[in-house]
């Protein structure tokens, strides 16, 4: 079984998510390769060897540094066609999901997504329907494409040596070069880091309006904690990106996580599911967040939170 792992890099570093997947691939068999495409990527190839890549395919090209998926589909399709890989593995990210799905269509290859594990006989484990069921999934043809849920595997060095480095050359499709990144805005972190907080009070769209974030802030202050947010409210400009929790935000594991008006989408869950105690207030009794809360409260945040803050303040005095 020959396996190819899609490696992502940012700011001169290989990303943990894809290294975790590479480490996983190395536990499944020995024929493991990785692929890196971007500006200054040759220097990163050796690092991939430590995580189990025997061969690293490199396409060093400044025009590939911006994270657009379609040229990467061309790169992977070329490699699969030339080398005949049995499987291509991806760690989920905004970029990787689009590369994986584009490759599936290009090659008419099966893609299983949101996997949390994979066995050496290629049966994948996927929690489905808001994680209410754990499904075993398989493939009917090769190459098998697998997209793993963010954070499924911690990167583990497997003691591998220097990998062989091979250059790849690719003819790009015209449509692949259509989308262009014109600017990138790095995260501005301000205030105390939420990753170290013992208590996090996170707000979602159920707060109703940006100014209602004061409800979360006051409760957080009473509990001695920090404030977090969902992508929906960050994208809408209600709260800064640095406070976002989830797949494209921070991964946190405080002693207490209080979710206010948050539905509990999978992409939010992956950022906070290892919190010790989770308390959720949501007015929809069917909200997915209740599936993984220790205390779920069906009710209105505007009614409950001010009282809760007051009661906690009273206890302290």
């Amino acid at each position, binding site marked *: 079984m020959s396996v190819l792992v899609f490696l992502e890099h940012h*700011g001169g570093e290989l990303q943990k998510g894809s290294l975790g997947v590479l480490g996983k691939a190395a536990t499944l068999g020995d024929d493991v390769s990785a692929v890196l495409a971007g500006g200054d990527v040759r220097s990163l190839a050796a690092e991939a060897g430590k995580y189990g890549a025997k061969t690293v395919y490199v396409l060093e090209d400044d025009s590939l540094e*911006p*994270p*657009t998926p379609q040229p990467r*589909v061309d790169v992977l399709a070329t490699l699969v066609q030339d080398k005949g890989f049995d499987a291509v593995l991806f760690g989920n990210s*905004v970029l990787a*999901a*689009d590369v994986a*799905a*584009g490759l*599936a*269509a290009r090659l*008419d*290859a*099966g*893609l299983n*997504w*949101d996997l949390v594990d994979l066995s050496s006989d290629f049966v994948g484990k996927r929690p489905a*329907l808001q994680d*209410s*069921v*754990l*499904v*075993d*999934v*398989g*493939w*009917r043809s090769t190459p098998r494409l697998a*997209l793993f849920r963010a954070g499924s595997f911690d990167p583990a060095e497997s003691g591998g040596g220097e990998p062989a480095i091979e250059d790849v050359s690719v003819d790009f499709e015209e*449509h692949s070069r*259509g*989308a*262009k990144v*014109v600017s*990138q*805005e790095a*995260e501005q972190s301000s205030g105390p880091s939420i990753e170290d907080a013992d208590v996090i009070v996170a707000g979602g769209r159920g707060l109703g309006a940006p100014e209602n974030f004061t409800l979360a802030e006051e409760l957080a202050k009473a509990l001695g904690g920090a404030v977090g947010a969902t*992508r929906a409210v*960050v*994208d*809408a400009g209600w709260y800064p*990106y640095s406070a976002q929790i989830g797949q*494209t935000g921070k991964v946190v594991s405080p002693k*207490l996580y209080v979710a206010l008006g948050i539905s509990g989408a999978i992409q939010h869950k992956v950022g906070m599911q290892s919190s010790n*105690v989770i308390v959720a*207030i949501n007015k929809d*009794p069917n909200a997915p967040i*209740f599936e*993984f*809360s*220790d*205390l779920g*409260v*069906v*009710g209105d945040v505007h*009614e*409950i939170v001010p009282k809760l803050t007051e*009661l*906690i303040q009273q*206890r302290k005095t």
Partner: protein
Amino acid sequence: MKIAVCVKHVPEGHARLDPTSKRLDRTGEGALNHFDANAVEEALRLKGDSDSEVVVVSLGPERAADSLRKALAMGADRAVLVSDDAAAGSDLVATSAILAKALERENADLVLFGQQASDADGAVLWAAVAERLHRPVVSQAAELTLTDGSLRVKRQTEFGYDVIEAPLPAVVAVSDAINEPRYPSLKGIMGAKKKPFETLSLGDVGVDAAQAGDAGSKTEVLALGEPPSRGDARKIEDGGNAAQEIVDFLAEKRLV
């Protein structure tokens, strides 16, 4: 200009898998995937007062007509439903092949998708469809603007925000924060009944039954199991005393 919006009819409430077929149980009530309401809203916003056309496209059972009608009631101009028993159980490869064929017939300048299907949570279909259509794709759009012949998207990644431009025709998947979808008005609901509505079979869109449904799928569900449980979770209704109950719970856990 023509804008096509791909929308899905999803089960309402708690979705479940049928233990025998191992497929999603679609026998209960369904509704328009709420993430797709954002895509419909965005198409209507881009259309504005212009004479652009907004066509909504879905692949699904006959009942998916309800979701398309809702999109028409919101203001879309026309609906296309691809419905065929042979398409049931299509995976990503098969679904993207069928939708791409239906979209080729439309030849829209812009194809919009929602952020994810609430039953599948794949958040992947657009990239597969764009590949089949040979068009540029941009996903997770939190802001979208069109200027003569090209589009501009602001979108979130793991590292911050990127601004991406692409020439039309193109495919864009919007985030759920891009807008606040309107509710259909009574007038909209009445008007929707008179809007053009096409129901097509696989043959009509030029897809061979062998490329669709179970036969055309490259992945399969092998078994269903129980996920690990989180222990003794409690759920209460607020009867006016919830704040105190939360404090008691936190005190019991020694968190206050």
